């Protein structure tokens, strides 16, 4: 102990001993991770610095840029509005009315979320496009023309169908968590049901609706697959094309605009989050009385059924159809699916998951236990993952690696790094929420029983947060499996995965070959939904 005196004094000066403040090593690790994650953004900034102002202005104000900006805004606006129009009524019908088979409709309303939107788009094009299933079916009847699926209508339809569940779920959560007695109070103050809904229910669930709407907007803005398949020129599609044509300057300029819009959406979201303190916190257990649908029952059922048919039955049906008919006429000149592709998908996803949970642990610990400014770093960092669309990340990483780490270019390392930047926040989230459920006095108890801080953490905290870490890893694994744009841009030469294979088959029009990998991806995203739902139940209890 005699030698320990100086160490103790040293330690005391930076306050590592109380266990309530942040150890220096942990902070250093967190800062290093932050810098790494931010590096792709650094490329965009650097690129801006290198470009001549006149050229930048020229590109920013070109006709194409204006068109693409308008297209993107129109798409985001219409999809968000339509998602609210579809999602909110579904939530109200399944929570507050006497709709028959409510549980069934709740499930079908949420499920379209498991279809990756590019697979949905793919299915819709094959059904409704020229020479698609539907036109082939209808042509013997003399119907030659069906409405065009390409362009804005197709992109809007597909994105709405596969993103409205965000609005549905947040609205449903808001409806479930608010106290039914206040509706009864409004009724007792001489309000009709409709008046009570407008003056009491709606203001309470509005933040939930808005939160869902913003998720839809952010998803739509960053989605690459759907607009590309629908041949609708928005930022993501243009960036990808410019990247393919080696016009980096223009790709960079479009990336700034795309990022600016994403940041704007996130800014609205975080303001909403901050102002939500008083909203739906009333934790009454009473449900408001059920609304009797009466003669509206049939239209309500048709509405639910219609949405379920378009969002669920149709895409899955088409995939199954491909699967059954696979051998005949659908197999073209393209390479057949090989098991090696599956192995590639699984192994990069596993690597991304592993790296993510390891990196997430210090960040989550900092976020959960530190009350210093550094403690909010991981949360801020997670926004980078959400805000930077895959195309932008892919673009930045290609050029960043070419310039500074050429050995990583065209390797799996770069691909895994991209996945970690995009999806690590999910692992931080689950790990942090597990940590928050652990009483800090466990560590104090272990220390009072003679354990060093790190040993105490390993013996007491780690076993308890293991399920959270595992869930985070599973989420990263599953979302990595279906990631499209960064995978396309960063795949090492000849390294095919489920996703790149589907994309290639889609481009060449040999739909049938995509059946198995597409169905696998649907199952994979179904599983990731399951992980999230299990976590929510677990956290709720």
């Amino acid at each position, binding site marked *: 102990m005699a030698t320990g005196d100086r160490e103790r004094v040293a330690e005391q000066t930076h306050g590592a001993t109380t266990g309530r403040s942040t150890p220096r090593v942990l902070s250093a690790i967190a800062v290093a991770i932050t810098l790494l994650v931010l590096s792709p953004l650094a490329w965009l900034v650097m690129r801006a610095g290198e470009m001549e102002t006149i050229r930048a202005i020229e590109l920013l104000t070109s006709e194409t840029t204006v068109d693409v900006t308008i297209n993107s805004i129109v798409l985001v606006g219409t999809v968000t509005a339509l998602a609210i129009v579809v999602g909110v009524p579904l939530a109200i019908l399944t929570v507050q009315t006497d709709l028959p088979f409510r549980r069934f409709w709740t499930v079908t309303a949420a499920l379209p979320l498991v279809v990756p939107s590019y697979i949905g788009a793919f299915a819709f094009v094959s059904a409704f496009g020229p020479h698609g299933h539907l036109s082939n079916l209808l042509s013997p009847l003399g119907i030659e023309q069906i409405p065009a699926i390409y362009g804005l209508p197709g992109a809007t339809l597909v994105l709405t169908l596969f993103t409205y569940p965000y609005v549905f779920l947040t609205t449903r959560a808001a409806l479930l968590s608010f106290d039914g007695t206040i509706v009864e109070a409004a009724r007792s103050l001489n309000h009709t049901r409709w008046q009570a809904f407008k003056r009491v229910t709606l203001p309470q669930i509005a933040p939930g609706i808005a939160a869902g709407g913003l998720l839809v907007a952010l998803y739509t803005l960053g989605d690459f697959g759907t607009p590309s398949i629908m041949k609708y020129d928005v930022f993501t599609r243009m960036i990808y094309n410019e990247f393919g044509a080696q016009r980096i300057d223009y790709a960079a300029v479009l990336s700034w605009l795309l990022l600016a819009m994403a940041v704007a959406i996130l800014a609205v979201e975080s303001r909403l989050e901050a102002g939500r303190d008083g909203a739906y916190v009333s934790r009454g257990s009473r449900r408001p009385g059920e609304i009797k649908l009466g003669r509206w029952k049939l239209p309500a059922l048709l509405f639910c059924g219609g949405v379920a048919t378009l969002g669920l039955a149709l895409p899955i049906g088409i995939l199954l159809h491909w699967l059954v008919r696979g051998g005949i006429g659908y197999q073209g000149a393209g390479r057949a699916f090989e098991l090696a592709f599956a192995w590639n998908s699984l192994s990069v996803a596993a690597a991304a998951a592993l790296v993510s949970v390891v990196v997430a642990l210090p960040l989550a610990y900092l976020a959960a236990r530190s009350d210093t400014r550094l403690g909010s770093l991981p949360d801020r960092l997670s926004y980078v993952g959400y805000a930077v669309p895959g195309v932008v990340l892919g673009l930045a990483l290609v050029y960043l690696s070419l310039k500074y780490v050429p050995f990583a270019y065209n390797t799996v390392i770069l691909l895994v790094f991209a996945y970690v930047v995009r999806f690590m926040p999910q692992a931080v989230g689950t790990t942090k929420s597990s940590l928050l459920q652990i009483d800090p006095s*466990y560590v*104090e108890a272990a*220390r009072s029983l003679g*354990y060093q801080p790190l040993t105490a953490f390993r013996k007491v905290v780690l076993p*308890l947060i293991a399920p959270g870490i595992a869930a985070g890893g599973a989420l990263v694994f599953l979302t990595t499996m279906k990631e499209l744009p960064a995978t396309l841009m960063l795949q090492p030469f000849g390294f095919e995965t489920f996703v790149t294979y589907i994309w290639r088959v889609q481009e060449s029009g040999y739909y049938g070959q995509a059946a198995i990998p597409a169905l696998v991806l649907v199952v994979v995203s179904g599983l990731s939904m399951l992980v999230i739902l299990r976590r929510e139940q677990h956290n709720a209890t």
Partner: protein
Amino acid sequence: MQRSTDTHDTTAAFDSVETAVEDPTATVLELDGIAKDYGHECAVEDLSLSVRDGELLTMLGPSGCGKTTTLRMIAGLEQPTDGTIQIDGRTVANSDAYDKPEERNVGIVFQDYALFPHLSVEENIAFGLTEASERKTDERVSELLELVDLDEHRTKMPSQLSGGQQQRVALARSLAPEPDVLLLDEPFSNLDVRLRVEMREEVRKILKRAGVTAISVTHDQEEALSISDRVAIMNDGHVEQVGDPAEVFENPESKFVASFLGQASFLSARVAGDTIETGMGTFETTRLNGPVEAYNGATVDVLVRPDDLRAVPSAESTADGYVTQRQYNGPSFVYRVTLHSGDVVHCLHNHSESFEPGEPVEIDLTADHPLAWYPTG
């Protein structure tokens, strides 16, 4: 872990648990002028306290008085900004050196027990026994399970136990490595009222049998007075009074202590030679505790508790005041009486003696002990 170097063989040491404490006059814990600042806020200020071997001392005070902070400083979970802490003659914290919690040989029973939920009862108890062989550990765990009377729950998980059982496991876990000092943070606050009384006796019995020096923290005066060898009344970051529970209750040294213990009222009295004049009559100064001559002609506040007074039905003309509130406690009533003089006092009566609010009453001073008093102000 240094602890087994200065203790004997685990089993041999446990035998001493059954016997009495070796030297009840030895000081085990010494706090000397300790202070804790949080930025500009001062949680503990110049606090000194010494605890004897085998003693159970309770720090009692309202929330925010600094008692939990003091406990955490003894444990090493917080570092004092000033002052010295000595455990068993060894300085564990002073203004420039500081032992970590794992180096102190101090056990803690946490308010919510902090049992490790992934470990069974026996694994929890064995958690701190890292030095001993497997057989020794096993024996020690058995001894402790016997001590806290939980033999049959050995392999259960904490979640399968009741609140009282969990508390006993927490106690056994912290006693297992034979701490020099055991700290208990609000130990009964998570139990329901009935169990609380039962566990108080149980815990005191276990602590006494283990012969451990223990410091407990609470804001519940009944708990503090009933289980402790000594109580330290804390207020605003410092100790107001330390002593034997009965002595502190009977002779509070400050008005704060007086008002904190029991349902205290203060009767303003003017000292006039050998008598004092109050809103309920004139009494001789011999009824007061200690000489009051120095205050001749001035006013003092006399401490009266509900059991010191009795209300007697009276006519309007002879009444001292009116009953203004009736509080029914089952076996007894406590009446609040507002005197004509403006003082408010409380009287304890059994449930058969009933007054109505608004009734005029005379108040008799029935106390058979000298009354504590304080200069007004």
